[in-house]
């Protein structure tokens, strides 16, 4: 009986330590969310093609809200383009949402700082409003079933190894991620 208790206690402590290690391994500024369902996101991109987040379930999504007038967004965007390039054929889907700007504004800005990125256009800002980000820029990581599992606080240097490693590891079972 006593042995069983000690083994159970040890296993429990081991599990707690492992859980803490996972929590501590998050890159700076990445916060766990509580798995709430992602709000609807149906928008056209800059080329006029329709996108629906719900229809793209089955893999992780990097959902990023930004505007060209926002200083931290301007600073972060080139790093996002480098991140996209570094992730190569990763199954992570990159979803960039411009908040309430015109096509001209977006085209002019991205043409200079990140010409390979193709954002969705939230022309009246209503989709952004529904997601209720803490501010701009805002990034959410949505799991394959459509639930928000992480969010980033403010702008991040996504092209840095810590973030790339974290993003590459999404969806990989912990036993395989060592």
């Amino acid at each position: 009986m006593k042995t069983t208790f000690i083994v159970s206690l040890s296993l429990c402590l081991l599990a707690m330590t492992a859980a803490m290690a996972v929590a501590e391994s998050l890159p700076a500024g990445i916060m766990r969310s509580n798995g709430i369902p992602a709000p609807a996101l149906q928008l056209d991109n800059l080329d006029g093609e329709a996108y629906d987040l719900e229809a793209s379930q089955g893999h992780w999504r990097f959902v990023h809200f930004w505007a060209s007038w926002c200083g931290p967004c301007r600073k972060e965007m080139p790093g996002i383009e480098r991140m996209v390039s570094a992730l190569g054929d990763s199954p992570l889907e990159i979803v960039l949402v411009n908040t309430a700007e015109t096509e001209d504004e977006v085209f002019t800005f991205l043409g200079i700082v990140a010409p390979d990125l193709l954002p969705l256009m939230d022309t009246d800002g209503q989709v952004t409003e529904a997601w209720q980000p803490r501010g701009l820029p805002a990034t959410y990581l949505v799991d394959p079933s459509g639930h928000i599992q992480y969010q980033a606080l403010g702008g991040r240097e996504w092209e840095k190894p810590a973030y790339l490693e974290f993003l590459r590891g999404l969806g990989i079972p912990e036993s395989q991620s060592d």
Partner: protein
Amino acid sequence: MRIRMQYLIAVQSWCGALLGTLLATSACGIDQPYPGPYVENEDMLMVLMPHSPEQIAAFYEARGFPKAALDLISKACFVTVHIENKSQRVIWMETATWHLSSDKQPLQRLGKDHWDTRWNKIDLPQANRATFGWTQLPVQRDLQPEEPVGRNIVLDGTIRKFNLEARFLTGRDKRGGMLEVRFQDIDCPKEAPRQ
């Protein structure tokens, strides 16, 4: 609950005032690291950046705001507030608890209701409303460790100077003590600074 009060004072004409307090954190105009009056210690950084009517109107004009909106915006005093949680605990920004004053009279922040009423009157497009909204400091924010927030508060444009006393509770449960920051005699510029 044991409350740790921490007073930090910043003033725009700060050199003389700083002589009287050991806890103040600011600079005297030499090698100013931020573009406005600021308070900084190991827990947080708070910077105020008042804008002239020309500066703020130019910003919104470049975002396609119509003249009727620019006229209203130009009559107000816009101050960009940057706050950064430098600690490893949660810092609660709750602007309803801030005390703004001018000439010893309480001063109200011109908040969402104020602007919604005016935007309705001029039928401001939704995109402009969204942009304006995202440039306004939220009413409440649980600033996580190392999280910054930087947006505007708007005041009555007729004032020339104002004071701000801001209190911040700390800790996830708001029981970690209080930080208090004071800014005194902050200008609401009436003209763009000379180059």
